[in-house]
């Protein structure tokens, strides 16, 4: 089976016009995303993440190189049928309601009739925009609601691959957690998820493999486990040890020739603490 996404030496130059030269946004990018995995595109602002995504989607033409989606050339109708996309800080036609937006995207994907209507209701429930919320115009939506509506639109045709460009940008911690849970759920359903972010700790929670881009070039690529595991170190987290036992343990480790690099009570992540502090109904 062909990989979900395959690029070979993908390159993109933007001409500035009026003789002002060119900007190299992506250079010699080769990557492979396997089917069913969660793939993270990491990098600071301007590293070429969005440009790479757009080339895979066919919204930008590569200056050179190749990209394929499920074996189809990127940008073709067959390739785009495989992908659902949510851009960064999405803007939608403000005059449409949430339900109308999803329905519009569904019709663009060739859906119609009761099948589309049912799917719209299903997705509105999934992203918690059912009922009256789904009938309101998008201009009355909060940022988080817009993000959820966009996600529903990306999922309407039940695509193989879901591409999310900075899906948690500008979203509150509860909303971020929701999106990450959704990504996990999509993975469980066998979908391939490709998302970009510059919020590294959020990527770490969900991604199987990542690629790190900087100024259009690939720096590193691999499984998170392989990239992040410090094989020369060992970490233990224990409960129920008194002060004396801790000192004993420290002394024993030193005696064994180990260097104790860090000890002390672990710190909870601020995000987890924040979410635990909220009332139950606000956490979701």
């Amino acid at each position, binding site marked *: 089976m062909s990989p979900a996404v395959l690029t070979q030496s993908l390159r993109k130059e*933007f001409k500035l016009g009026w003789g002002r030269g060119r900007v190299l946004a992506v250079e010699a990018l080769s990557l492979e995303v396997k089917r069913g995995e969660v793939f993270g595109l990491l990098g600071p602002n301007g590293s070429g993440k969005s440009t790479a995504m*757009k080339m895979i*989607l*066919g*919204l*930008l*033409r590569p200056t050179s190189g190749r990209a394929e989606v499920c074996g189809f050339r990127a940008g073709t*109708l*067959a390739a*785009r*049928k495989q*992908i659902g*996309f*949510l*851009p960064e*800080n*999405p*803007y*939608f*036609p403000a*005059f*449409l309601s949430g339900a*109308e937006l999803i329905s*519009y*995207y569904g*019709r*663009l*994907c*060739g859906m*119609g009739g009761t099948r589309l209507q049912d799917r719209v209701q299903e997705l509105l429930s999934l992203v918690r925009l059912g009922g009256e919320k789904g009938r309101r115009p998008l201009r009355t939506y909060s940022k988080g609601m817009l993000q959820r509506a*966009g996600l529903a*639109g990306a999922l309407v*045709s039940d695509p193989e691959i879901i591409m999310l460009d900075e899906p948690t940008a500008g979203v509150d911690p509860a909303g971020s957690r929701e999106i990450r849970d959704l990504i996990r759920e999509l993975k469980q359903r066998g979908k391939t998820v490709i998302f970009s972010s510059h919020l590294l700790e959020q990527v770490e929670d969900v991604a199987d493999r990542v690629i790190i881009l900087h100024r259009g070039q690939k720096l590193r690529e691999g499984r998170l486990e392989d990239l992040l595991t410090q094989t020369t170190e060992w970490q233990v987290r224990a409960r129920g040890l008194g002060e004396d036992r801790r000192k004993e343990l420290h002394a024993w480790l030193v005696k064994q020739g180990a260097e104790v690099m860090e000890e002390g009570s672990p710190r909870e992540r601020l995000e987890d603490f924040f979410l635990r502090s909220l009332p139950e109904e606000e956490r979701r």
Partner: protein
Amino acid sequence: MRESGRRILAVAANTFLEAVRQKVFAVMLIFALVLLGGANYFAEFSFQEQFKFLKDLGYATISLTGLLVGLLGAAQLIPAEIERRTILTALCRPLRRWEFVVGKYLGLVFLLGTMLAIMAAGFWAVLRWKEAQLVGAEGTEAAMIQAIQAEARDARLWQAFWLVSAKLFVISAIAVFFSTLATSTTFVVAMTLMVYLIGHLQSVAREQWLESGEKVGWILQAFLAGVAFLIPDFNLYGLIDEIVAGNAVQWRATLEVMAYSVTYVFVLLAAAAWLFEGRDL
């Protein structure tokens, strides 16, 4: 083919809905006010003069309203979507770029067509009201009443209406063409207006370039050739003035101008689609 048609219709319906919900139809209120106000303005003139004024006012107001809506609507179709980035979520779907361009244009045509039909109905109603007013004032002289009715119920007015519509559809297609090249709405509006104005000069330029043999500088010759080649001949729609003047215009001539308009729209949309195909978003 059928799937393509469905996608185009989806884009067209969305474009139409956007305009309706943005209350574009409200601009027709201005049309209605102008026409009703104008209907009574020339009361001291002869009935022929009054009808001429009313018909000129009606067609000019329909044309201007349609021009504003078509121009501004078409100018926003693509640059505004690129600026707002709403185009990304549409074009990442299995939707061809030419389908998007055609769908956008068709949505605008639906909008314009609806507005033109409403304005035409309103114009017809005002003409009949004027007829009743004048017949009441003229008494019972049969010849006079017949002449007034002939002015008000002139079937050729429908020909003029179709010509006005065809002209507006061509102008909208020109705006769509520029909008596939441009990044700003202002550029699209300015370029389309320029083509609109020069289009009324095109036949003069064409004749001077092709037929008169008069010696002019090469720069002027090049300009004249460029205008003749690239710009539509809006003087062909001068049949509208003929109809308002009460002169006979054959349906054959009107239909040929409409065929010219349809062909022009087709070429412009094809060129727009070609240009848009390679555009980075």
